[in-house]
């Protein structure tokens, strides 16, 4: 079922190693099959309390009043935690690497921006008692108009989801509401292409659905420290996030994890740790906060949806001459990690192919849904779906075998990629050849002979003249603080920017396409010349 093709690229490898390359048993297998691998939830602590959160029933609403009077009197309740109890109740995950602005409270204070947003946390003796108390919290909502579509969100006059980003889009480089990629002159090339195909692709959100839900157990330790058993996928990321939100030095915490029941990207966001620790700080007792399955599925972060428009120009012989892409990441109500994925997505354009003219705009958009996060293939999975469906359509359009079409356009060693770095160590062609062979999918001799190590570079290594866009109007001021933040504003420094490149000499405007050129547009539902 798995075959190692040692014959390919053999000259680049030393296969005479002792441990590397062996199918050694997993270090954790004995623990797994005996049920003795220790996950965060397997820690049993004396006097442990249970934390549950009250979640918003509204997708977008102002919070007129939060009444916890009855909940406080409920049997078994040890502590009610509200936004004001969170030392720094505004954070964005990537502030740890200076990317983006704090935009998300741990507990909502004056407004909720997605259904399921945590408003109040309740720490009680038992889960049942915590549940009973959550049912007694009364919240008075003033519903606000909701936004669920990424393109609607970008229209002028759309309701503002997240006041940190008043245009409902993440701001890149303090200037743009999208990340750009510009390589060559895509419009000019599209105008001279034999065929132009424009299509729309949509990926729905995806839930990570690990069999172990997100959770943490925090307990007071000696010397004023807290020990935290956690399901996090990123231990120090979580430590530092908790230190920031709880406004204490990071060595206040002793995080223990490392054996996690599946993550797939869904255990990076550090959602349970800060509240569990805060609960332990406020009660002096161990506190456990674990997502239920419905919580995990609906209010645990998903991989966000993406909408992608691709417009390609292809010649009759199968060469793609231009690829123009507009992509929208649906980040949900807060940034989390989608902003970063959009940059990764831009870098991924135009897929593993050498195309001389590439144009990309990638947006990270805010809507009133559960904030999205990373997932296996983050920033790339949906784009690969769009690009590879598009490749199949293009091959069909020019009457080529899809395998041969891939090999014809594949990037090779020495080619210039659209993000202006040389392609090295490429192997797409060989993968296509081997997959064709395995599937008994016939491809012609010249394509069987192609190689990633041949015929790249040269004219394919050139950075083409790239016309400069007219510079967009600068967006809203970089720093916006909201009522959540009790600290004086601090300026988040973006990495210094290079000045925009000098405008290339404008390339001559292309003439009308040659006769017989077919142009399709699934986007506008028209077929035009």
């Amino acid at each position, binding site marked *: 079922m798995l075959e190692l093709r040692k014959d390919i690229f053999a000259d680049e490898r030393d296969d005479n190693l002792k441990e590397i390359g062996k199918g050694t048993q997993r270090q954790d297998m004995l623990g797994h099959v005996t049920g003795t691998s220790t996950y965060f939830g397997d820690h049993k602590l004396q006097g442990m309390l249970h934390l549950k959160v009250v979640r918003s029933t509204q997708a977008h609403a102002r919070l007129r009043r939060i009444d916890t009077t009855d909940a406080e009197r409920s*049997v078994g309740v040890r502590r009610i935690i509200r936004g004001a109890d969170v030392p720094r109740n505004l954070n964005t995950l990537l502030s740890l690497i200076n990317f983006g602005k704090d935009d998300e409270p741990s507990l909502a204070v004056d407004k909720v921006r997605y259904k399921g947003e945590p408003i109040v946390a309740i720490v009680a003796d038992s889960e*049942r*008692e915590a*549940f009973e108390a*959550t*049912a007694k919290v009364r919240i008075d909502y003033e519903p606000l108009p909701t936004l669920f579509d990424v393109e609607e969100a970008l229209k002028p006059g759309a309701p503002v989801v997240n006041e940190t980003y008043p245009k409902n889009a993440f701001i890149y480089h303090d200037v743009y509401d999208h990340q750009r990629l510009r390589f060559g002159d895509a419009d000019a090339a599209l105008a001279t292409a034999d065929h132009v195909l424009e299509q729309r692709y949509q990926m729905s959100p995806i839930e990570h659905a690990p069999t172990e839900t997100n959770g943490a157990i925090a307990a007071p330790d000696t010397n004023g420290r807290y020990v935290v058993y956690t399901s996090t996928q990123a231990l120090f990321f979580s430590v530092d996030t908790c230190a920031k939100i709880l406004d204490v030095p990071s060595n206040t915490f002793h995080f223990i994890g490392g054996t996690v029941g599946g993550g797939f990207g869904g255990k990076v966001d550090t959602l349970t740790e800060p509240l569990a620790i805060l609960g332990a700080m406020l009660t002096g007792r161990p506190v456990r906060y674990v997502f*239920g399955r*419905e919580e995990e599925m609906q209010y645990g972060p998903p991989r966000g949806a993406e909408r992608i428009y691709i417009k390609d120009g292809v010649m009759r012989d199968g060469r793609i001459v231009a690829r123009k892409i507009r992509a929208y990441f649906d980040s949900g109500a807060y940034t989390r990690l989608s902003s970063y994925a959009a940059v990764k997505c831009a870098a991924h354009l135009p897929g593993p192919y050498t195309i001389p003219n590439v144009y990309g705009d990638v947006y990270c958009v805010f809507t009133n849904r559960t904030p999205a996060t990373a997932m296996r293939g983050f920033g790339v999975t949906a784009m690969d779906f769009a690009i590879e469906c598009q490749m199949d359509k293009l091959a069909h359009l020019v009457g080529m075998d899809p395998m041969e079409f891939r090999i014809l356009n594949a990037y090779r060693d020495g080619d210039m990629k659209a993000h202006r770095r040389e392609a090295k160590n490429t192997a797409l062609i060989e993968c296509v050849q081997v997959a064709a062979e395995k599937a008994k999918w016939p491809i012609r001799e010249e394509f069987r002979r192609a190689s990633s190590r041949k015929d790249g570079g040269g004219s394919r290594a050139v950075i083409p003249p790239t016309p400069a866009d007219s510079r967009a109007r600068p967006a809203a001021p970089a720093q916006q603080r909201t009522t959540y933040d009790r600290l004086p504003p601090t300026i988040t420094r973006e990495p210094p920017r290079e000045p925009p490149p000098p405008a290339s000499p404008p390339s001559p405007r292309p003439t009308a396409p040659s006769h017989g050129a077919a142009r399709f547009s699934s986007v506008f539902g028209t077929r035009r010349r």
Partner: protein
Amino acid sequence: MAVTVKTFASSNEAAAALSSDRAARYLGGGTLVMRALNEGDVSISTVVRTNDQTLTRIDASGPRITLGAGVTFARVLAERDLAFLHAPARSIGGPAVRNMGTVGGNLFAPNPYGDFTVALLALDATVAVQGGFGARDIPIEEFLQSRERQAGTLVLSVSCARPASAEAFRYRKIARIKPKGGSVITLAAHLPISGGRIAGARIALGSMAPTQIRARAAERALEGRILDAATIAAAASAASEGTSPSDNALGSAWYRREIVGVHLRRLLSGQE
């Protein structure tokens, strides 16, 4: 307030406890009530159960079979005399759910659950319930139509006539996931044959309305006819008539209407 568990020796006492306490729920196999408790449903504060042996009795010897409400799907599957109910029983959950889930509980399971009940509806079953005012038998269709109001009653058993032949009763659950998946739609057909013609056709559908329902238009298309291609086609094209499916995570109302006839045709003509 913790949950109070009340265990009674007889179904009478259990029924009385159930009908006297709005916050009480009867615990059968646990697949509904324990799930609700685990998920923080604080409207349940009393769990009523009984060890009454009559609730777990199976009477499958005669032409009319009776299943105690507490009979599990695994027990139905273990009973050779209940072969006609094996397909619906096997379509419930995975093995653990079949070991736990009960015939009585299934009557209360909302969409996308409640597949066994679809079979019982096609078999014109009778539901024996014990309410605050004593025991009575209710036709299953009536029971399902008033299911919302049955929360305070205790189901004792269900009974139905045994189909005349294996051919006369057919069941199919359409699920996205195999072998264990939630119902997109569920179909059961009871087609007694008298003198070569269908007499007393019953077609029951799951996930085609808020509760399991009968496809009366399809039944009419079958009634009194020979089960040939034309009859099957007529029944299939009438299958969605009178249904009111909803959108849910497993499929849309549109999709359910589109495929119900296709699957009824396949079921009646013996196609995969």
